[in-house]
């Protein structure tokens, strides 16, 4: 009886394994593989995540509706890409002048372990005053990145230190939360500023 039980168990286990392998193939390589079009960020209205901004206020994707938005990911322990992105954006915002009042600009940390709300507040204070710094729990950060179709990954640099690889593009949305294009990392000002102006113009049409 004992042996018979064991055989049944092995049979069931190997059946389950085969099923799992088939399901994995279906989703990764087979007909169930995701379409490349899934790379487009969701509309803000379909995202769901909770974060805290640099002033300690609870925020989420709905906080961005009503104005055009620029959202990008990074972390404050980033020596090259992130300060470059924040200072590039600061100079674009300087070019926009008063129109900045119609724009949400949000820097979301993908390293919430080291980037506390206080750390984010201090960091963004060195750049254009319109730039907000959002921080969420690990889970909420993952949900946010999923919504924006952004990715990030921790990379060890030795001695317990680490850095983060991450999507460095800036995502733009109109006032209704519809995705309105990206600005690539380190894109020249002569391309970036007109892109932002177009999204602002579209927003004005929607709201007038």
């Amino acid at each position, binding site marked *: 009886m004992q042996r018979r039980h064991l055989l049944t168990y092995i049979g069931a286990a190997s059946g389950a394994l085969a099923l799992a392998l088939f399901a994995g193939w279906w989703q990764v390589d087979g007909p169930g593989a995701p379409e490349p079009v899934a*790379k487009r960020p969701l509309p803000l209205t379909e995202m769901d995540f909770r974060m805290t901004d640099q002033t300690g206020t609870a925020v989420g994707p709905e906080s961005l509706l009503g104005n055009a938005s620029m959202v990008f990911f990074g972390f*404050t*322990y980033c*020596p*090259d*890409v992130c*300060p*470059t992105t*924040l*200072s*590039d954006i*600061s*100079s674009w915002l300087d070019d926009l002048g008063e129109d900045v009042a119609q724009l949400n600009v949000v820097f979301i940390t993908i390293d919430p372990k080291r980037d506390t709300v206080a*750390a984010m507040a*201090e*960091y963004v204070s*060195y*750049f254009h005053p319109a730039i907000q710094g959002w921080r969420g729990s690990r889970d909420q950060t993952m949900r946010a990145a999923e919504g924006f179709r952004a*990715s990030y990954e921790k*990379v060890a*640099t*030795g*001695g317990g*230190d680490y*850095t983060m*690889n*991450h*999507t*460095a*593009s800036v995502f733009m949305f109109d006032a209704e939360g519809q995705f309105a294009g*990206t600005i*690539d*990392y*380190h894109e020249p000002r002569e391309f970036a500023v007109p892109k932002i102006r177009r999204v602002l113009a579209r927003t004005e049409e929607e709201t007038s």
Partner: protein
Amino acid sequence: MKSPVAAVAIALSIFLGLPISSFAGSQDIVVEDAWARASIGKNRPGAAYMTVRNTGTDPVTILSLETPLAMMPDIHRTTTDANGVSSMAPAGEITIAPGEAVSLEPGGLHAMLMRLETPMVEGESFSLTLTFDDGGTVTVDVPILGIAARGPEG
């Protein structure tokens, strides 16, 4: 240091990072437009940028960096893939052909300053020594600009 002209020449050579010692290739290395961003405290790594120009007739390879500011300085390269994901990794040895220059600038190569000994304070400066494959070294004084600086002019 008899004439003011000589004093100015020495001061200028230190400022431009001209090597004081004489080695086959590295004596022809000139480092220009060095700058770095200020840091918040000393837990975060810093980055420094500059142009390294080879004015000589032999190729010269940068082997390593050294600075009293950071325990682990290294040259890194930032790359951004087709999906817009940026990453950085040690750049390895960098060879500069005769008459050519290598630019360390935001989004490309940077002198990554890991394990800071002291915070990088705006308005101060630090020395950075580049060691080359002929055994020669060049030491530059790197001015620390604001955190939001975009280039050697701020």
